[in-house]
């Protein structure tokens, strides 16, 4: 066991009213976020939405325009980056090309004047954690992308930082390696107990890794929650569409009997609750709540029904996946357990779902298909 530091427990991060302006451009606009000690928090959002900016503010690479960031109750606004004791893993690895793997990993310990024996032991132990013990004497350029990223991870965690920031660390790697390293990162998070903040634009990655996800859009956080919360109870159309697969239905809507009713292609389509607030609303559907039937009479009792043409029918083994295009061009996707018969493309079909599965959201003008 390392003897130079007691095992770090994760720190709480409190981001309060933080803004970052570049000239007149607001890269971050009045963001609030509380991250729990030891939590795995992902920042998810499209490119340019302010994820890296937030990470850089926490790391101390940029100064904030307004607001405050606290690390375990301690405001860190005036603490320079090298005194924050926060580990950072960069998308571009940022390994020191003139140092071997072992020297790279020893670097943060050297800065902290850890004596040589303890340093060497810690380097060996950490390299073993990322399964690179046999590569200690290689130079970064002699490693594959995945190996380099593991060195970067080892270097960022060898000094037991209370917070580990990762900016799209797997972005440059192929899918298979990415999935493998996701599991590694999750395991390391469990072992270390530090607070992890992980930036990604890949919603699947965010779902696999995180305790909670903060969804960024245009310099603001739209919603913070567990993957399940974001998937089943998105608060905005942007979040609903960014996480998971979805179909969006638009149409004139009225309130009727304490619930919103939309008229789509002349057919009434119900939600289970009234629309909150003014303005246009839409219905968002998750594919697994939608069923597709060859005959309208097969649709379950009390369900919303729309008719259309099957434009995609895929047999997936574990189930079937359909896309049904209704008149007007809207595509509704559905995912069902195995049906008795696979509908064929071009066939007339009825899509059906229960009113409580209609996710009612204000129309914020997000693109209908992503």
């Amino acid at each position, binding site marked *: 066991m390392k003897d130079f530091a007691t095992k770090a427990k994760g720190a709480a991060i409190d981001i309060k009213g933080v803004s970052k302006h570049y000239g007149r451009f607001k890269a971050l606009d009045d963001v609030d976020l509380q991250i729990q000690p030891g939590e795995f928090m992902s920042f998810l959002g499209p490119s340019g939405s302010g994820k890296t900016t937030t990470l850089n503010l926490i*790391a*101390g*690479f940029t100064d904030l325009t307004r607001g405050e960031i606290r690390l375990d109750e301690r405001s860190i606004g005036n603490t*320079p*980056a*090298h*005194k*924050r*004791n*926060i*580990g*950072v893993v*960069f998308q*571009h*690895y*940022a*390994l*020191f*090309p*003139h140092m071997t793997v072992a020297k790279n990993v020893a*670097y*943060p310990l050297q*800065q*902290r004047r850890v004596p040589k024996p303890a340093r060497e032991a810690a380097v060996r132990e950490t390299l073993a954690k990322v399964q690179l013990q046999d590569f200690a004497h290689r*130079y*970064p*350029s*002699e*490693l594959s*992308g995945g190996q*380099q990223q593991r060195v970067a991870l080892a*270097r*960022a965690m060898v*000094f037991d930082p209370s917070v580990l920031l990762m900016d799209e660390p797997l972005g*440059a790697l192929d899918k298979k390696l990415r999935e493998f390293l996701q599991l590694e990162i999750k395991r390391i998070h469990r072992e270390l107990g530090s607070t992890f903040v992980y930036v990604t634009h890949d919603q699947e990655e965010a779902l696999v890794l995180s305790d909670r996800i903060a969804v960024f859009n245009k310099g603001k956080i739209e919603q913070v929650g567990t993957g399940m919360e974001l998937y089943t109870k998105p608060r905005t159309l942007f979040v609903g569409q960014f996480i998971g697969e979805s179909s969006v239905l638009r149409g004139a809507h009225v309130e009727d009997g304490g619930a919103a009713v939309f008229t789509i292609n002349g057919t009434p389509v119900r939600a289970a609750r009234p629309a909150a607030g003014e303005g246009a609303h839409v219905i968002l559907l998750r594919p697994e709540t939608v069923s597709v039937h060859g005959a309208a009479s097969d649709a379950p009792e009390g369900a919303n029904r729309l008719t259309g043409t099957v434009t995609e029918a895929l047999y997936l083994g574990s189930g079937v996946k359909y896309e049904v295009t209704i008149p007007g061009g809207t595509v509704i996707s559905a995912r069902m357990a195995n049906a008795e018969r696979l509908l064929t493309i071009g066939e007339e079909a009825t899509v059906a779902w229960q009113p409580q599965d209609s996710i009612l959201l204000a129309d914020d003008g997000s693109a209908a298909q992503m």
Partner: protein
Amino acid sequence: MSNSNTKPDGAARLGWAGVRRHPLLLVLPALVLLILIMAVPLITIIARSFIDPVPGLGNYSWFFSHKLNLIVLWRTFVISFWVTISCVLVAYPYAFAMSVAGPRLRLILVLCVLVPFWVSGVVRTLAWVIILQDTGVINQFVIWLGFDKLSLIRTQLGVTIGMTQVLLPFMVMPLFAVMRGIDLRLIEAAKSLGSHPVKAFFQVYLPLSLPGVFAGATIVFILALGFYITPLLLGGPSSTMLSTLVQQQVMSLLNWGRGGAMGVILLVATFGFLALASPFMRRKYDISGGSK
């Protein structure tokens, strides 16, 4: 088209496919030129140093038995050394600024290095004469301040200043080329790992820029060894460099043998220096660190 098919066989063989098959064809013109303007005179000089006026090692024993020659040879190396050091010191921050500047500022900085380069060395050296002479700009200022005038011209200091300015582009350009390839985000990484920015510079940036320093220093040092005009115009008897001695022997005394011997000695010394320096120029690592 039919006329393209009627190309004579020889032209077809020298066409693009021919060049691809025999890439040496591309270096042929340069090779001819080099042989004519380099190899032939060089061989002549080497030959004459051994046979002129009488066959034997007379010219070499003359060189090594006259103390003045050895002093000048040593001085040539010392001056070249200081010129190299001052070039590094001036060029390093300059090249760094160039590597981090925006495109417009970078263009201006590049021009500032290159424009003097397009002006002939004689003209630039004469400009330095005007600046450094006893009644020059610097001394007028020093006297106006109430101090004694400085001896700048006809000293090694003056020669060093002038040569530094003339040779600066040869230091700036290789440094800039290397620095442009250094990822500045490595400094951020070092900071996040607990390194003070100043330390991060010495531990990360400086080592990565050293190949540029060595490349530039080698070029500057070797060019400085053979400098003629600048030491002649800015220097005095106490700052004579070897090329001046060569010139005296050949042009004034018509002693081609001794001049040739000095040339050969300088050449051998230069190669010796290159051999000493080459281990420093090799790198075990790839500067990009493999990041894409």
